[in-house]
């Protein structure tokens, strides 16, 4: 399957292991990625908070570039991109006059967004396009006995109407389903659908790190071996900032946090180092037996 691929900014900046692991996993899933290397940042909601028309124009440009490819749909690997782009697309698709005005802003480049683009996060694509049975059939190293806590964050599950979460598309359960399909054990804990705190890290660092620390602690209390996230911004607060979060909440943490393509890649037989796991701040030693590169058994969580 060929897709117009939007990696986002952070996966090529402070979480390079995300972009790298997606590139490694794609061929194993028969995914051909046509990278949108001319597209701009989605704005992460911040540009929309400054000027809605500006955010809508930047994303309409990305959508238009995606529509110029022969990809079956557009795929992203960042929940924040999914949420911010879905918000802009909702407005663009809802009102012809508005869409025309936004397209007018793109006319100098000869670009135009046509209503009705399909833009799916890798998680949605895994379940809805590839399918759990096909995914299961590709597993080479089942995540047997690995206790994985899904951390959805916000942008990929809310608001449910805009993001198409319903009985037919239970997208708020997809990570649960993928973990199980890969042979792992799902750990439900209090933080599954909560906010990682990243958006206010520069405004209220104490509250931001308290959020991250609380969710990591809850996952530890539920005996998770690791968390998996569909968003690099969540990864920044839960992994890069974990030592600071530990100080704020006053407890030892040491909870490994995996990007979704890394978890999939592990189960499909890729080596942890090829998936960039050595770049994590909290080493996923509870996930991986580094000497043999085999998913560990029931080892307790440790940094």
């Amino acid at each position: 399957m060929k897709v117009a691929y939007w990696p986002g900014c952070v996966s090529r900046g402070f979480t390079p292991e995300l972009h790298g692991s997606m590139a490694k996993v794609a061929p194993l899933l028969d995914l051909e990625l046509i990278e949108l290397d001319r597209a701009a940042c989605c704005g992460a909601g911040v540009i929309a908070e400054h000027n809605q028309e500006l955010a809508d124009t930047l994303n309409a440009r990305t959508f238009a570039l995606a529509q110029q490819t022969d990809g079956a749909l557009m795929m992203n690997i960042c929940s924040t991109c999914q949420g911010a782009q879905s918000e802009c697309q909702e407005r663009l698709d809802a009102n012809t006059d508005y869409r025309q005005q936004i397209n007018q802003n793109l006319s100098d480049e000869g670009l135009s967004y046509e209503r009705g683009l399909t833009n799916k996060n890798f998680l949605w694509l895994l379940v809805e396009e590839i399918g759990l049975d096909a995914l299961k059939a590709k597993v080479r190293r089942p995540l047997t006995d690995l206790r994985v806590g899904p951390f959805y964050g916000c942008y990929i599950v809310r608001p449910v109407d805009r993001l198409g979460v319903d009985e037919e598309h239970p997208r708020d359960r997809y990570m649960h389903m993928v973990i199980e399909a890969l042979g792992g054990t799902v750990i439900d804990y209090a933080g599954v659908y909560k906010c990682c705190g990243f958006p206010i890290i520069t405004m209220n660092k104490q509250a931001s790190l308290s959020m991250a620390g609380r969710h990591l602690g809850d996952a530890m209390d539920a005996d998770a071996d690791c968390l998996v996230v569909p968003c690099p911004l969540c990864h920044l607060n839960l992994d890069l900032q974990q030592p600071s979060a530990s100080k704020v909440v006053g407890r030892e943490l040491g909870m490994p946090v995996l990007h979704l393509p890394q978890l999939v890649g592990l189960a499909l037989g890729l080596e942890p180092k090829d998936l960039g796991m050595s770049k994590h701040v909290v080493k996923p030693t509870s996930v991986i037996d580094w000497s043999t590169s085999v998913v560990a058994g029931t080892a307790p969580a440790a940094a």
Partner: protein
Amino acid sequence: MPEYLLRIRRFDPQSGEAAYWDEHSVELGERNSVLDAILKVKDEVDGSVGIRCSCQQAICGSCGVRMNGKPGLACNTHLEEAAARVRGVGWNPAEGLDESDDMTPAGVIEIEPMGNMPVIKDLIVDMDAVHWKKIQRVTPYLINKTPVPDREYIVPHENMVDVTQTMACIQCGACVSDCLSMEIDPLFVGPAALAKAYRFVGDPRDAEHYDRLNDLSQDEHGIYDCTHCFNCIDACPKGVDPMSQIMRLRRRAGSDEKIVDRNNGHRHEDAFVTLVRDYGLLNEAELLPRSYGGNSWFGKFHPAAGKELMSSIGTVATGVLRRKISPKTALLGHKLGKSDLSSLNHIYTEVEGRDQRVELNLYVTGYEDESERELAGIEDRQPPAEPSAPGEGSQSASSESETS
């Protein structure tokens, strides 16, 4: 008639006993409301169940509760809808339940008091202690411009329409219940009160726009304490979109009033917007120092940026050691090609150069049905521009009574 298992969270703080689940089977139609079921239990089985309610028509805002994890009004939530949420649907599933636990053909509905507020009894929470205190915090009344005109104020229609969405609030507290910022920072002014603040910031008759915005920007628990978690949008039974109102307050404060707050809120936004213009992509290594020290390359040399850098030195060092952050990325960032940057510059100039911002509010315009539109032969028109000083209308009142 389907049978539902109601699990009601019971708690009386004055009893000295711990909270417990009280289970009742109720036979009611799937289109009956959760409130119907609670009142049936109260009327026929146990009159001591505490629930606050009045109009039963989603107008008074009294019967806010959590149903299978999601906050909302018990009176406008159908039993079948609440039961279907047992999986979660974006909210943590009800405690210890999953689909296999359906003990009746129709399902299980766990009913709890709203969160972020102390419980008075069972499903009744203390709205005065949290919600109303926060509403008072934002000066929830019009402060007239002077001199007062001899006759009534004339308010442009578009300004009236602009504040319609926030005026739809019925003060039920559902958004407060599950605000994830307030869960961590109880002092956060919160979604309901900030939506109320926009009702006056958007009203051209109000004389204190700047002071209101400055107050809520400078407050470390004010408009920049919202994390964009979207819980309030999904919780609201009236489509108020409190988070969107908070973003509009930020737009007014930062873009219109140029308020530079002490919480780095405006600097962060300003730096973000500028960096995307100049690089096309987000340059995280520049964004952080600029958020603290000011929106220029020299921002990193500001004492505030230096202080933050010193406090984060361990985090940065670990990132570099693990090759998560390469020196090249940190120093140069990543950039789009020249022709793309030139296109972005053109877009910025065009959009930022407008006399009035263009803002499409789907609450006001609705979702167009294209086929109907074509049939009607509606001619093209410009989308509504965001009014520069909107608003008119009277504050909606709500009444409530308590029974326990």
